[in-house]
C-alpha cells in the first residue's frame, strides 16, 4: 500500500485518451472516453460484457482505428499518425483473453520473436531477454515447450512474458483470466501483482473484483461505452456514488463475477 501513496506524486501521464469514440457500424461502442494513466499506475476497468472494455484496450493499442478524439503516449499524439503505429505498438504491450500464442513456436521463441524482429536485437540478446522474462513468470522450465503442451495458466503467463518482451511503457490486459480454469487464475493474478509491485504501468479489464480492489490504484466502471464512475477501489467498492455502479456491483455480488462473462 505504501507503493500507492508514493507514486501519485510523480504523476506524469504516460498514456492518455482524450474523448475517444469508436463505432462498429451504427453502434457507438466507445463514447468520448477520457482516461489518463500516470507512470506506475494500475487502473482496472470493470463493467459487464459489451460495456466497451475490450474495445477501449484495442483502441489504446492502435489495433482498431478510432472515430473521434485522440490518444497520446508520453505527450505525443499517436492516434492520428498511422505511419508510426508499429513503433507505438512496440511501446505498448497487450495480452488477450484467448492467449493468441504462436503455435508453431516454443514458449521461448514466442517471447523472443518481437525483440529480434521488431526491435532488431541479435538472436542471442533476444533469447537472453526471453529467458529472463520466462524465469520472472515462473516458466524457466517450460522454455522449449510448445503452447499446446502448456496449461491455460502457463500459456497466459507466456503471453504476458511476450507482451513484456518489447519493454513496453504500458501493459494492457484484456480479461486475461476469464478463459482460465478457476484453479489456474491464481497463478496469473499473482504474476500481475508482482508486476504491479515492480512499478509496471497497467490498464486491466477484469471481472475479478477482489483482484481489482487489491491491485488497482484506480477503478473505472464502464457502461454503454462511457466511464460512468472512476475513483479509488475504496471509493468504488465501498461507497459508489452513481446508481448504475451500485446496480452493477450489487449484481456482481449476488450472482458472482463468472456469470457476467
Amino acid at each position, binding site marked *: 500500500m505504501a507503493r500507492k501513496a508514493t507514486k501519485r506524486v510523480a504523476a506524469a501521464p504516460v498514456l492518455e485518451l482524450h474523448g475517444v469514440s469508436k463505432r462498429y457500424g451504427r453502434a457507438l461502442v466507445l463514447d468520448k472516453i477520457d482516461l489518463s494513466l500516470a507512470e506506475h499506475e494500475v487502473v482496472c476497468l470493470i463493467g459487464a460484457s459489451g460495456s466497451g472494455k475490450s474495445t477501449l484496450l484495442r483502441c489504446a493499442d492502435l*489495433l482498431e482505428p478510432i472515430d473521434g478524439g485522440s490518444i497520446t503516449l508520453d505527450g505525443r499524439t499517436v492516434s492520428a499518425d498511422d505511419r508510426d503505429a*508499429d513503433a507505438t*505498438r512496440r511501446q505498448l504491450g497487450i495480452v488477450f483473453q484467448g492467449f493468441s500464442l504462436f503455435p508453431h513456436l516454443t514458449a521461448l521463441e514466442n517471447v523472443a520473436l*518481437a525483440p529480434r524482429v521488431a526491435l532488431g536485437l541479435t538472436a542471442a540478446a533476444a533469447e537472453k531477454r526471453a529467458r529472463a522474462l520466462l524465469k520472472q513468470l515462473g516458466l524457466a522450465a517450460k522454455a522449449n515447450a510448445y503452447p499446446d503442451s502448456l496449461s491455460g495458466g502457463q500459456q497466459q503467463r507466456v503471453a504476458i512474458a511476450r507482451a513484456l518482451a*518489447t519493454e513496453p511503457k504500458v501493459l494492457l490486459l484484456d480479461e486475461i483470466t476469464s478463459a482460465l480454469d478457476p484453479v489456474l487464475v491464481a497463478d496469473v493474478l499473482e504474476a500481475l501483482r508482482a508486476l504491479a509491485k515492480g512499478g509496471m504501468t497497467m490498464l486491466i479489464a477484469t471481472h475479478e473484483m477482489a483482484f481489482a480492489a487489491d491491485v488497482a490504484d484506480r477503478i473505472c466502471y464502464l457502461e454503454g461505452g462511457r466511464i460512468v464512475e472512476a475513483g479509488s477501489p475504496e471509493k468504488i467498492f465501498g461507497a459508489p456514488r452513481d446508481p448504475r455502479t451500485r446496480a452493477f456491483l450489487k449484481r456482481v455480488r449476488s450472482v458472482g463475477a463468472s456469470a457476467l462473462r
Partner: protein
Amino acid sequence: MTAARSARKGTLVAVISTLVVATLLAISIGSSPSWPLVQKAFFDGTYFSTSLPNVIGAFAINIQLFVLAEILILPIGLLVALARSITSPALAPLRIFATIYTDFFRGVPSILLIYVLGFGVPALRLPGVPSEPFFWALVTLVLIYSAYVSEVYRAGIESIHPSQERAARALGLTRFQALRYVVLPQALRRVVPPLLNDFIGLQKDTALVSILGVVEAFKQAQILKSANFNFTPLMVTALIFLVITIPMTRLVDRLAAKDRATQQGGTR
C-alpha cells in the same frame, strides 16, 4: 485373443482373399477367347523389353520439365497468392491482375494453352524470343500450375486465424513481418498435402507437351507404336508414370492423415 494377434489374423485373411480373387480374375481373363489378341496388342513381352529403354530415356525430358516447373512454381505461386491478398487500395491493380491471371489460367484447357503458346508465339518470330518447344512447354506448365498453386497457398494463408496476425501486430511487427514470421510458417505447413496433389497433376500433364513435338515419354511411345502397330510402348509409359505418381499419392494420403490427427489432437 490379444489385439495384436487379432490384427495379424485380419491381415492374413485380407491377403488370402485378395490372392484368391486376383487368381480367379487372372484365370477368367486369360481363358477368354479374345485375350491372346489383347495381350499381343497391349502387353507384348518383346515389344515391352525393346521399348522400355527408349521410353525411359525419353522420360528424362518429363522429369526435367516437372522438376524445373516445380522449382519455378513454388515461389511464383506464393507471389501470386500474396498479390491476391493485398488490401492496400494503392496496390489494387496488382490484386486485380493476380485475380484475372488465376481465373484465366485455371479456366482454360491446358492443352489449348500449350498449343497456342507453343506454336503461336514462336510463329511470331519476335527477336530475342526463344522458339524451342521445350521452353514454351515449360513456360505454359509454369503459368497454368502457378495459378493452381497460388490458390492452394491462399487457402492456407486464410486458414490461419486473424487473431494470430493481430497478436503479431500488437507486438509491433509490421504487416510484412507478421506474415513472414507468424502467418506463413503456419500456413505453409498446412498446404504441403494439397501442394503435392497439384504436383502429381503437373507430372501427368507433362505428357501434354507431346503435341508440340517434344519427344518425351508419351511422344516416344507414340513413335514406337506407329513403327510396330503395337500399343505395348504406351503401356510401358503408363507404368513409368505410375511408378512416380503412386508413391507420391500415398505420401499425400499419409501427410493428410497426420495433419488431421494433429488438428484433432491440438492446435499445432
